């Protein structure tokens, strides 16, 4: 399967969101991350793979261990994606407001 991972699909899963929260403060190994969940280790590995493929997590080799840490740029991209939609409505409402100021209430 060679699907390009959708970052929004990735964060729709509660376990993956929990993983992102875990590594937000400091980089962790797969084993340390898996220790926080009741789910089987391969399941956690699959989640880590998905998060890495969509670049929310980055891998870093330290000696014999691989540490996972958050990619802040990618996280910012998610926060920013709502902004154009909000702007679109903000523009429309600003326009509505300025147009309606020319009208007088009937009451």
């Amino acid at each position, binding site marked *: 399967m060679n699907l390009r991972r959708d970052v*929004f699909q990735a964060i729709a899963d509660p376990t993956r969101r929990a993983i992102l929260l875990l590594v937000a403060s400091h980089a962790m190994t797969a084993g340390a991350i898996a220790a926080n969940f009741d789910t089987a280790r391969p399941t956690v590995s699959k989640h880590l793979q998905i998060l890495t493929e969509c670049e929310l997590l980055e891998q870093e080799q330290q000696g014999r261990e691989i540490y996972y840490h958050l990619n802040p740029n990618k996280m910012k991209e998610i926060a920013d994606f709502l902004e154009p939609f909000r702007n*679109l409505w903000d*523009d429309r409402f600003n326009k509505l407001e300025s147009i309606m100021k020319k009208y007088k209430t009937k*009451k």
Partner: protein
Amino acid sequence: MERKTKLKAEEGRQDIVITREFDLPLELLFRAYSEAEIVEQWMTTKVLKLDNRAHGGWQFETKDPQGNVVFRANGTIHEFTPEKRITRTFEMENTGFPVQLEFLDFEALSDDTSKLTMQIVYRSAEDRNRMLKLPFAAGMNKAHDRLQEVVNALK
């Protein structure tokens, strides 16, 4: 006075909530939604139909300067309670996006100010995100700015 538009889109949910406070009496805010010629001005679209009543409907269309239809949407009005609520559906034609359900609640904050709360419910959380990413992907704001330039040039 600057009154910013707020957008709430919680992860894993299939709806969004847009809120905006207006420096307008409730009566004028509601008229901006009920009169076709006013809707045309602030939505920068042509209103083909606006039958504001329960079991009524609406249809908007936007053409580029060459006359090609770039946007057409329609829906059914489920509830129309003046100065209180409009419940309607919204569907963009020829896009493959599923129909969405919109609840618009209007309220007075004072004699001269009012608030609109717009809840949009999508078919799935995935559809919601696809829809939200549309202006992000298509640079809709830029297109909107260009349209504004065209309009200004005509004046």
